């Protein structure tokens, strides 16, 4: 299992007919069991890239090699749940073969058990995100795509959800690609960090982190963060990436 990405360019035409370059050269590779993190400022084209990687957008220059038949689990920035199906039905719909034991374990980790019968309209954003996560994990994906899964959650909740994601990712060998503008999330969750420039996006640096997620202490995370900031600021722009 390996993901090989080489996107030479992606242009986008807006409603007024003007053409914009969104991606100007992004190449990286990811192995099974690795968490790759795309870190870049808001609006740099990260979501566009994820759409390409998820196979939703084929209109680009370059190539994306996904393992044949790989099951893709995705958590979009908005949870994208079916409002007319309950939490459990939302999960079971994409994973009809998942057995009860595994689902219970998943709901247990994400603290969703008491919400199984609720409809998405009755959930807070944090809960809805967790349902979207449960859905992505329920299919036992080979390739997991997470688009800003912690954005607009308060600090404590984001930290808890981050731990839950780490637990789930470590639980099975899956290629994970996380997109974030938050340097802290990147330093805590990633195995390899790909730093992106502002639009049009290029990979500015490819940083592997050798220490396993669980073993990273506060000092090390602070060091990784300052390294990221330095590289981003020392790069082409003076913009803050956080």
């Amino acid at each position, binding site marked *: 299992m390996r993901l090989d990405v080489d996107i030479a360019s992606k242009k986008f035409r807006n409603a007024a007919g003007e053409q914009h370059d969104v991606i100007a050269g992004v190449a990286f590779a990811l192995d099974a069991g690795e968490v790759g993190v795309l870190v870049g400022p808001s609006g740099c084209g990260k979501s566009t890239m994820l*759409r390409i990687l*998820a*196979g*939703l957008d084929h209109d680009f220059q370059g190539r994306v090699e996904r393992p044949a038949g790989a*099951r*893709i*689990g*995705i958590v*979009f920035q*908005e949870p*994208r749940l*079916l*409002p*007319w*199906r309950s939490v459990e039905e939302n999960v079971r*719909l*994409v994973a009809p073969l998942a057995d009860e034991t595994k689902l219970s374990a998943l709901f247990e980790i994400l603290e969703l058990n008491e919400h199984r019968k609720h*409809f998405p*309209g*009755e959930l807070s954003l944090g809960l809805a995100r967790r349902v979207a996560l449960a*859905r992505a994990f329920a*299919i036992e994906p080979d390739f997991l*795509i997470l688009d800003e899964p912690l954005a607009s959650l308060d600090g404590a909740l984001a930290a808890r959800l981050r731990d839950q994601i780490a637990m789930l990712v470590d639980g099975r060998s899956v290629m994970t690609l996380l997109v974030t503008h938050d340097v802290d999330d990147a330093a805590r969750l990633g195995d390899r960090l790909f730093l992106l420039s502002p639009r049009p996006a290029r990979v500015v640096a490819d940083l592997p982190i050798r220490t396993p997620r669980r073993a990273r202490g506060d000092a090390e995370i602070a060091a990784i963060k300052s390294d990221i900031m330095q590289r981003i600021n020392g790069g082409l722009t003076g913009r803050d990436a956080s």
Partner: protein
Amino acid sequence: MPRLLSFAVFFATWWIASLLAGDAKLPPPPTVLAAMLAEAKSGDLFLNLGVTLARVALAFTLAMSLGSAIGYLMGRVRLADRLGDPWLILLLNLPALVVIVLAYIWAGLTEIAAIAAIAINKLPTAVVTLREGARALDAALDEMATVFALPRSRTFRHVILPQLAPYIAAAARSGLSLVWKIVLVAELLGRPNGVGFEIGVAFQLFDIPLLLAYSLSFAAVVLVIETVLVQPFEARLSRWRPRAA
């Protein structure tokens, strides 16, 4: 309770109006009830209501299923929309009477002609409503279904259909009322039975109690169908909404 009150007001108004206008023009409720009972006793009432209902059911089902399919296609596929649009505008603006008369001329005074004519009248409104529904489908959910590789049948049933449900309900309700109205015209012009035929007879004989007896029995049936079938169906469809109307 408010419903019952509403009925009471209706009958009271009717009775007062009949006192003012005179029996000959507007018979009071008991006279109409007597006519209704007489028709019921002879069995004619149920026969005619049944025949009309069967025509409504057939024409409605035909128009809804065909109209929904065409509307969905036109909402999803641009080419289908371009090709179908002129036809749609033509059908929408074609008077019901023209369709019915032409159907009887071309296909004879047959059951098929009657049902087809009613269905053709209803078809375009179903198409228009479902086309709007298909255009309003959430692309974000489509993408979700694509990435998770949901089979088409499951996507249709769990992702698409629930989004179309309010539009289908709207098309069904407006369509049902349209079919009720048109079926009587079709029966009046070319069928030997049914509520429309009986009303035609009553009109020729100036038998106002009979006319009202059939009209009101028919209205009662419609009301029952609306209460027992359409409204519970809608309520079930919208149960996931936090504050269902």
